[in-house]
């Protein structure tokens, strides 16, 4: 295809231009590879994406439309991502293992025009007008219009109409836990992602010789670095499926076998690798960068990891989905034996500005705590179809729009910002954001539950544990097994509470609000049910 050559001379406007440029510079280099060895060169990936784009356009997908992805990770899923963007639509990746009801809510909320699906979730085939079915086991009894992936790939490549494209076009929507019980869609434009990717280029200096891990699922914001940084530079993307990602020994072997040069994941995965991965058995001499984000890395685990892998440069990246990564800190190794306090989230990236303000709205001094606000071209445009929450998320200050991260940080002097915690009811677990209120509203839907209060408590092993206190309706006593199953039907697995405590009634404050402090105190005292129940 000569399309890429033409686009090569232009500055990138959309994320998909990265692929076009690399396809013309490095047509025969490896672009992406599945764990099973299926791989695509840059020319192949670009061609597949262009054919998908052409097919989507023929099916009536237009600029600005949303297209859903309910797929395990694969080179085909990656081609679909680029195909959707080449059709000038926005992709909406969702957790293909998630509860059907939640996925339906999301796909309906953003009104996907088309959907990529495979045999893992056939029941969702009725959520879009057009369905593209991956895999050979397509069930022909589904109502049309369901098209096979192979058919879509037979379409002629789409020549991108570059005239009407803008960097501020919507690129993708990532759904995160919402406090009302309904997930909310974070809208990110091409500019939002590209300014962040440019910063990665500046700091991590990637080249076409790099081999990047792609550990995070596509619906998780870590995937933005995993996908677009390597594709921009002609490097290779090594896709890691969910199953492998959770088996430390296999994962460790995979990193060594593939001679990965850049690793990016949550600290939880790295901690697991350090503990169970037998990291001293293999050769990791190619690994030059280890990046982590999503939650605080316990220093003990980080020390263990850096002693097994002494060579790479370590970076702590911080940023909510709404801003992309916005602050970062280089961790110098080895980590001193006596160090116990967690590493700072550091200073703002070059594409961001940060502001830390106290409750009066005035900037705090060094050593003081305040709420962190972020401004810059990587900050999202708003929540899908939620104008009120979108405007509430921002502060207008000095002629700029500042996003309230909700995170409390401390001005830590030379080291930059230190993460302190939250003032609201959002917690992070395995790198995922969880609104405790979303769990509560799920529990309230259980017919035998008349009161539910969910709290998080610190845990040495897993960071946090989620504890739900429940008051059952008269004469009923749901079993914990049943409650777990109920949550499993309605919530992703990382939101299923660890502990259920049945109580006669929930403790209340003088203003008749649920007394969460009392619940946390009760839990800490270890007296649990007996203390509140009777």
């Amino acid at each position: 295809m000569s399309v890429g050559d033409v686009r090569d001379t232009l500055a990138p406007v959309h994320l998909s231009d990265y692929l076009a440029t690399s396809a013309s510079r490095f047509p025969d280099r490896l672009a992406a590879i599945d764990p099973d060895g299926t791989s695509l060169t840059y020319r192949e990936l670009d061609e597949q994406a262009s054919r998908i784009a052409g097919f989507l356009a023929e099916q009536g997908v237009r600029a600005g439309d949303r297209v859903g992805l309910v797929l395990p990770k694969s080179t085909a899923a990656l081609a679909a991502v680029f195909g959707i963007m080449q059709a000038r639509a926005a992709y909406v990746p969702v957790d293909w293992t998630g509860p059907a009801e939640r996925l339906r809510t999301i796909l309906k909320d953003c009104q996907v025009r088309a959907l990529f699906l495979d045999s893992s979730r056939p029941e969702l085939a009725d959520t879009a007008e057009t369905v593209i079915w991956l895999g050979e086991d397509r069930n022909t009894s589904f109502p049309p219009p369901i098209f096979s992936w192979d058919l879509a790939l037979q379409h002629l490549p789409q020549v991108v109409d570059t005239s009407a494209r803008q960097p501020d076009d919507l690129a993708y929507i990532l759904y995160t836990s919402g406090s009302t019980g309904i997930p909310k869609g974070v809208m990110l434009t091409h500019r939002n992602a590209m300014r962040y990717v440019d910063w990665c280029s500046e700091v991590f200096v990637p080249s076409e010789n790099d081999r990047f891990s792609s550990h995070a699922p596509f619906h998780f914001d870590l995937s933005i670095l995993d996908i677009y940084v390597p594709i921009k530079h002609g490097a290779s993307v090594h896709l890691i499926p969910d199953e492998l990602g959770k088996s430390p020994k296999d994962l460790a072997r995979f990193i060594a076998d593939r001679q990965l040069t850049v690793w990016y994941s949550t600290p939880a995965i790295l901690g697991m690798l350090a503990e169970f991965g037998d990291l001293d058995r293999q050769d990791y001499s190619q690994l030059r960068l280890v990046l982590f984000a999503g939650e605080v890395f316990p220093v003990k685990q980080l020390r263990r990891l850096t002693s097994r892998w002494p060579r790479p440069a370590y970076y702590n990246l911080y940023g909510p989905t709404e801003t992309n990564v916005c602050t970062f800190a280089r961790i110098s190794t080895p980590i001193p034996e006596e160090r116990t306090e967690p590493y700072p989230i550091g200073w703002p990236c070059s594409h961001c500005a940060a502001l830390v303000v106290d409750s009066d709205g005035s900037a705090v001094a060094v050593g003081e705590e305040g709420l962190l606000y972020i401004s810059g071209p990587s900050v999202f445009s708003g929540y899908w179809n939620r104008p009120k929450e979108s405007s509430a998320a921002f502060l207008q200050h000095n002629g700029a729009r500042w996003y309230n991260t909700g995170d409390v940080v401390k001005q830590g002097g030379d080291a930059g910002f230190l993460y302190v915690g939250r003032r609201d009811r959002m917690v992070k677990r395995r790198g995922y954001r969880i609104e405790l209120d979303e769990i509560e509203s799920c529990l309230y839907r259980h017919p035998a539950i008349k009161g539910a209060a969910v709290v998080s408590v610190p845990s040495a092993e897993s960071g946090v544990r989620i504890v739900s206190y429940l008051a059952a309706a008269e004469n009923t006593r749901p079993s914990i097994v049943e409650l777990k199953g109920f949550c499993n039907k309605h919530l992703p697995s990382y939101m299923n509470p660890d502990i259920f405590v049945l109580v006669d009634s929930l403790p209340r404050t003088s203003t008749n609000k649920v007394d969460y402090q009392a619940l946390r105190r009760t839990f800490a005292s270890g007296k649990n049910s007996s203390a509140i129940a009777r």
Partner: protein
Amino acid sequence: MPGKDVETDNVREEIRQYILAEFLPGESASNLRDDTPLRTGGILDSVSTLAVVDFIEKRYGIEVEAHEAGVENFDSIALIAAFVESKKTLV
């Protein structure tokens, strides 16, 4: 072989006690039956399954391959116990 049945019962009971203590604190043993769905019923997720794998590896001196740690062997106490037995027989 009556001896083997007794052994299987023991394995089931030990796994039940482990799961109750670790993942269902406060639940009565009678609600966690041999056939209660663990993975598909939300009691174990992929992370807690790792802990169960670690437990049975240490307790019964067996080694579990990653591809064996899925729903087919870990979705109920009966399945896990049968899996442990099959591994022990191989040794």
